[in-house]
């Protein structure tokens, strides 16, 4: 049964290749919000928060027929997050700005009218975590206490001893950090045929990492997965005749 299904699909695709196949190349850019799917275990007053980022890519599309194509978007994307403390430790945080080079590969389904069309994308991606930047404030055990009156009361520990501020490149730990990320994606959007060869599009896309940001280096490890929600716009240029 599986073989028959596969053969059927291949026949449909093959049948449309000669009459409709065409390449398109474009440029896209977007804004994203990245959530870390994890938890902070029994750490009190500590939580992971989403952070904003951006992406820029060069989409390449191979259209097989009027409703189906294959698309790849080599891109640079920031998938950031923040670990933040609350309560008496308010003001202590670390923002992790993570940069990835990513290659989404997806099936592109088109539907709708002649100029204005709807589409959705389904596929997977592979990414490489190229760099990470950390910025934050931590408690400083060697900090010089502020001079405060004896009856001074504050809601924040940092009012008693100033924190240590930092803004620096993160050095990857090869024992812990998994820099290859694999995942799946789904997106939907609209495109508009501006000129015969030019097409504008806007898309909302969701990237779901299926690989932990950490290698399996310890028992009872709490995994960390990126969940990235992207809104992006772009323009495609049709190549060939």
């Amino acid at each position: 049964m599986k073989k028959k299904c596969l053969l059927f699909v291949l026949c449909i695709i093959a049948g449309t290749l000669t009459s409709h196949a065409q390449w398109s190349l474009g440029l896209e850019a977007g804004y994203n919000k990245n959530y870390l799917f994890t938890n902070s275990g029994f750490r009190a007053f500590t939580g992971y928060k989403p952070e904003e980022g951006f992406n820029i890519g060069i989409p390449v599309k191979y259209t097989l027929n009027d409703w189906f194509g294959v698309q790849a978007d080599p891109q640079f994307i920031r998938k950031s997050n923040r670990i933040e403390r609350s309560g008496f430790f308010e003001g202590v945080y670390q923002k992790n700005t993570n940069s990835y080079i990513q290659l989404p590969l997806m099936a592109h389904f088109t539907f709708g009218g002649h100029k204005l069309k709807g589409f959705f994308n389904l596929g997977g991606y592979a990414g490489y975590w190229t760099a990470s930047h950390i910025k934050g404030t931590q408690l400083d055990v060697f900090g010089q206490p502020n001079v405060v009156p004896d009856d001074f009361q504050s809601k924040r520990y940092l009012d008693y001893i100033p924190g240590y501020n930092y803004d620096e490149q993160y050095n990857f730990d090869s024992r812990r950090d998994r820099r290859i990320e694999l995942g799946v994606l789904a997106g939907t959007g609209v495109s508009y045929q501006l000129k015969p060869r030019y097409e504008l599009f806007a898309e909302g896309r969701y990237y779901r990492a299926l690989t932990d940001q950490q290698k399996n280096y310890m028992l009872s490890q709490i995994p960390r997965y990126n969940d990235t929600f992207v809104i992006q716009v772009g323009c495609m240029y049709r190549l060939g005749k």
Partner: protein
Amino acid sequence: MFRAAVCILIITTVTSCRKELPQINQPERYISGNFSEAFEAYWNGMNNNYIFWDIDPTNWDDVYKKYKPLFAQMNINDSTDVRKSYTYFKEMTSQLVDSHYALQINSKYVKDSATYISPSGIRHSKQPGYHGNINPNFFYSTIPPKYLDPGYVKGVLNFSDGSQFFAVAGKIKNNILYLHFNSFRLKTVYGSPTPNNAQKTLKYYFDQLQNTAGLKGIIMDVRSNGGGALADLDLLVGALTDKSYSIGATRSKGGMGRLDYTPWIDARVHPAKDAKAFTAPIVVLADLNSVSMAEMTTMALKALPAGNTTFVGERTWGGNGPLVGNDDFYNGGQFKTDFMSLVYTSTLMMRYKDGKIYEGLGFPPDVEVKYNKAALDAGIDPQLEKAISLIPQ
């Protein structure tokens, strides 16, 4: 049909490929109704709170695999098994690098055999050349009349918890300032609302430091000093510098993972009020029983911007990770379980300004002068004599 198949495939993949998030409970929340729970609570506490996994030789996963089945076979209400557990805990912690580390088991069955398990203490006592603390009376009663000029000051202060602080200060050859004290409670004693001789001794030292013209040097004696309050660093070493300077860095846990750390945070000495830079030679005396704040003070003196400190004596103990009583502050460090009345462990990891971590290794002296029991028994202090000889007249 094709679209539907793809959708089903994707949805199935998406929902099944992630690992589940484990529920990890706070060690204090476990009920030690049996040994499996007691071990689990302790193992998890260590797994997530211990600060030295980055450099520790212990394979904590192997500990789980080996001891979990052993504890599962034991009965927590059986005195023989409880004593056996003491042996197991001693074995599994024997190589932990944290020199502050100590386990206190909360059971009437082991109270008689030992109050706590201290892996570093056991290793320390087995090292070649080991000796116990220099007798406090040597500092208090032998050194002053033999080495200090007349007019020296000394005093003792007893605390309500049963501990005792003492300090000795004076001059040698009329131009070398000497200070010894047995623990770092300087700020408490110095600021004590009730006048006492220990306070008088510290006041003498700071007055002489600030007001004596032509001091040729200082000898800071932290031998056999078990440490104490970090806040004393700025009071004691901050009195020797007019500007803030770095002695190294510390880092704490940055998450639940063993290798989740904050970045290295600059560890600084801040100048005391009205302090002037002391540029004449400083000799710090420390020995293999100088630990924690005594080591940090030795490091801080060595790191003075003037570069005028020489460390004489023996390699220190090697326990210089700062401790905070509440593990919520730095998301790591000491904790309790139902079965352990205390798992005493460092909150932060420290590295010296040379980039090295001396935890478990000890800080090495510039001039090694070994402990000499016969000399001390005869009232002679070769380490102090060496220190004096290093300060030119």
